[in-house]
């Protein structure tokens, strides 16, 4: 399996390598939803030693006044030879094309890549696209088939429900603080699902259940996907490693997906899950399916 997974400061690169992860996704300092102040150059060198690649997450939309800074940052990433950039703003792709930057480019707008034809068109200009999470498994497989080795799929991690420029938590708490990161969540007044919410200087990101694909991993692993993404940016290292173990175990036939799902639930019973194949006409969680 070609697995890309998130990296945050303190995560063990060796532990990821042992689990056959091929690349880490690190938050682009100042240009992503999380600003971990990771020294990406040093991380790149560490990764290189053990054969891991580095992708940089730039999951923001940028204002005109920031474009020069974005350009400088992309040139820096090119100089230190990261494997690629995962971006939300098409500006990143255009700057890389205009300036002849050599890293790989993956577009991940989260909600906009819902059909074969848009992905094909975008892949004329970039290396990969991450397919949206709000479409059916049937649609996902059609998109993958129509764009062989050009699609990535987020197979595990909290579903990004929305991205806003607004500072929702500050507004509600009447507080001037920009950042509310770890441990914040919403519960809709008539429901029980926890919806993690992250506010940074660049806005607010709201998440839903964690999407899980344990039942589908064998099929996805055999499909012409360019990479599978396990992205537990909101959760800790031990959860992330345990999740990767479960996917490896199911893919290798060591345990079946039902058993893996039971183990997944035991990792953190507070987390709500949505199964990839349940994203059809409805978005049911596993318990109510």
């Amino acid at each position, binding site marked *: 399996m070609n697995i890309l997974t998130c990296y945050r400061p303190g995560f063990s690169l060796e532990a990821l390598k042992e689990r056959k992860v091929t690349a880490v996704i690190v938050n682009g300092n100042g240009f992503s939803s999380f600003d971990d102040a990771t020294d990406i150059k040093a991380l790149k060198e560490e990764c290189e030693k053990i054969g891991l690649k580095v992708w940089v997450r730039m999951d923001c939309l940028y204002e*005109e006044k920031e474009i020069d800074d974005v350009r400088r940052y992309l040139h820096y990433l090119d100089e230190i030879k990261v494997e690629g950039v995962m971006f939300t*703003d098409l500006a990143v792709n255009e700057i890389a094309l205009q300036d002849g930057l050599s890293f790989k480019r993956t577009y991940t707008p989260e909600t*906009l890549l819902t*059909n074969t*034809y848009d992905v094909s068109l975008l892949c004329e200009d970039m290396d990969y696209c991450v397919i949206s999470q709000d479409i059916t498994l049937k649609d996902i497989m059609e998109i993958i088939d129509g764009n062989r080795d050009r699609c990535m799929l987020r197979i595990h991690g909290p579903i990004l429900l*929305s*991205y806003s420029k607004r500072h*929702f938590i500050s507004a509600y708490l009447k507080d001037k603080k920009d950042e509310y990161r770890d441990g914040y969540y919403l519960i809709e*007044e008539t429901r029980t699902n926890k919806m993690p919410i992250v506010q940074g200087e660049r806005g607010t990101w709201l998440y839903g259940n964690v999407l899980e694909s344990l039942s589908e991993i064998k099929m996805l692993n055999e499909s012409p996907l360019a990479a599978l993404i396990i992205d537990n940016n909101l959760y800790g290292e031990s959860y992330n490693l345990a999740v990767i173990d479960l996917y490896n175990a199911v893919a290798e036939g060591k345990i079946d997906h039902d058993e893996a799902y039971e183990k997944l639930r035991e990792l953190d019973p507070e987390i709500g899950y949505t199964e990839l194949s349940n994203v059809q006409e409805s978005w049911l969680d596993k318990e109510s399916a």
Partner: protein
Amino acid sequence: MNKVELLAPAGDLARLKTAIVYGADAVYFGGKQFSLRSRASNFTNEDIKEAVEFAHSYGRKVFVTVNMIPHNSDFEGLREYLQLLQEYGVDAIICASGAILKLAKQYAPKLEVHISTQQTTTNTAAIEYWKRLKADRIVLGREISLDQLNLMIPKTDMPLEVFIHGGMCANYSGRCIISNFLTNRDANRGGCAQSCRWNYHLYKDQQCLDNGEYLFSLGSKDMCAIEYMQPLLESGVVSLKIEGRMKTAYYIASVVKAYRMMIDDYYENGKISDEVYNKAYKLLKQVSNRDTYEGFYGNEISTRGQIYNFVLTASQTFLANVIKYDPDKGTAVIEVRNNFSAGDRVCVFNPKGDNNEFDLGELKTLEGEQVITANRPMQLLEIKVPCEVSEYSFIKGVEE
């Protein structure tokens, strides 16, 4: 000098005609398929044909929204639909998908293609992508500030359109699936349940952070950019857009007239006078059913834009639609919308000119029965009017 375009929404043919008669330079609406705002009435193919004929007879333009974020199955019939729009003489489509843009350029090349705000374009580097695909106009994200807009315009020759009035998405448009997640209704395919306006409890770990007065919400106040009209008119944008395909004809008439007055005043006198501003402000205030703010045009990421404990309020100034006018008798048949009584002070709201105030005389049913208080919505009544009215006129209450 090229005049900026005033672009208005229309939920159906009647509202389209109202928007045009009240001064919109162009009108946008959705067909029965491929569009967002599925709860708006939307236009049949025959409606679209009539809309184009009507708009073009006034020298105005028609844009059709094909702005869903399509799934594979949504492409069925799309090519034929685009060809039909071209055949009818539609001026442009508004779309949010490169694949749809490409289809339009290939099979309906006379249609201009405008990139929807669903793509949330916020800088000139991103505009370059759409330019390479031969897009004809970009509808910018509503998150653009005036300063950012003024930085962008000198750096691109792409015509830019911005919103000036109406409902605001809490999130970057197109980048939100809260409705899908909570209600199974896909906002990017026209099913938005406005879950952002619901109430939520906010927690940090196990601690509830509810403030005791009202629950957390993502809901936004509506945009009203009246304070920014002069700089927007000076900025070089090609089109100023009003949101609200779900709104009533009276709302459309009032908002279009308000902005029309300001735009015309600017081009006639080089600035918007206080008198025109005040008249426009009053018109806009009368039809607001949510609090408004300037959107993101100011430089700060304002926390004033949020709205909590939201209850929609209906305008009480709108009393009746005019259905028919008899110039010989000086009477009009009106359709009741809000309560009023014989003897009330009311006014006629016409596309041009000031409101014409008068005291209502007798109210009569079409069968000639006298009515003291009109309190049956949709009832048709005959009244005497002091001036010429038309099917595009409204009867309003007079505010103290």
